């Protein structure tokens, strides 16, 4: 265990070291305060892992595997990280149709009422009274 950690830190220090030795152009992201002036290998590694996490989670959630690559590729680093961390908490906009939970009449009646007084818009057949 100790050895592997040692090896890992050695590899990491080499990669960071070589990064510092090579000159580079300052990216626009650096001045927008999104990452340090010199892109560190560590940041890049974190990114790769975040994108892999997103791809895996998408697969579990039934996203068509052909589309996953394009979807993950179209995200910026910040977007991919945010999804990787919060995918289970983020809201997902769905549709405008009525989606009544058939068995729960109570919810139906409450929402029907709130639709009518105009604080919700669940059913397409209701017209709120302040309309």
């Amino acid at each position, binding site marked *: 265990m100790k050895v592997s950690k040692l090896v890992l830190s050695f590899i990491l220090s080499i990669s960071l070291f070589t990064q*510092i030795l090579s000159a580079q152009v300052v990216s626009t992201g650096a001045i927008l305060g999104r990452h340090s002036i010199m892109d560190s290998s560590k940041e890049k590694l974190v990114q790769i892992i975040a994108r892999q996490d997103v791809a895996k989670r998408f697969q579990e959630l039934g996203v068509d595997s052909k589309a996953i690559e394009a979807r993950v590729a179209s995200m910026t680093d910040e977007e991919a990280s945010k999804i990787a961390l919060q995918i289970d908490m983020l809201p997902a906009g769905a*549709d405008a149709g009525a989606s009544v939970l058939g068995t729960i009449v109570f919810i139906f009646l409450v929402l029907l009422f709130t639709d009518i007084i105009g604080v919700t818009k669940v059913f397409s057949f209701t017209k709120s009274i302040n309309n």
Partner: protein
Amino acid sequence: MPKSPLPLNNNYSSYKIDVPFVAPRSKLCASTSIEMVSSYWQSMTPYVPRLSLLELDERTLIPAKGGTLQIELMAAARANGLLVYPIEPTFDALFAELSERHPVIVLVNRSFSWYPLWHYAPITGYDAKAQTILTHFGDEPNEAVPIATFGELWKRSDNWGVALLPPGRLPASVSAKVFLRAAYDFEKTGMTNEAIIAYETALSRWPDYVPLLFALGNAYYNSHRISKAEEVYRYILLIDSKYPYALNNLADLLFHTQRSEEALKLLDRVITDDVEIQTLIKNTRKEIKAKKI
């Protein structure tokens, strides 16, 4: 009955934007909303969408969630060639975009937090007399929703909304920094041409905003338009002769175009206490000296 969310004595006038209507399909409101706004811009400007409706569907739906995440709506719209500008979460910002005929896609919760029904829809106008928001919300085009009801639904997403714009157009309620970030998002996802058009367009409003010029110079440099990049970096140094990042990047450019002497002289002009910048300049100088021809 909910109260109107608009400030008393507001002078918002009526607008109706001619956004083509696409009938709703279950769980695909994000994709449908992008499609409607994209075809609006296609009918108004030279903008051409990059993705078909089917491709938009494939890029937005998460089957197990039965809907689309905000980030993916933004990523898909950008992949379709539109700049995604998140508006300030206020009615002022919403009406500012509407007044310039920019449709805004909003996220609303049609129900309560204990039984959320999230939904995206483009806002297509406002009727000041009837106090209704016009929106392609569901089955009928330009459905009139009382402003009070809309205020309740929109509040539940913390008034989340995005204006999707062709890269040659600026949002109405614009912050230079927010716009620059939105334009740079194009570049980060490999759409450098769109980014360049957006930067160039923004220069018409902020001709001397250095971060914007720097972004444009970098975008030219990254796409190998060397003389354009050089021109922009030099212009930055006319505005701020000590701007270290432009000095560094121009030095790099000069070095790669066989002008190492001038490059080193530029680096001598950097004066800073910032350790990170000092290291950067030191490395650039070292590389130039090592490979000097």
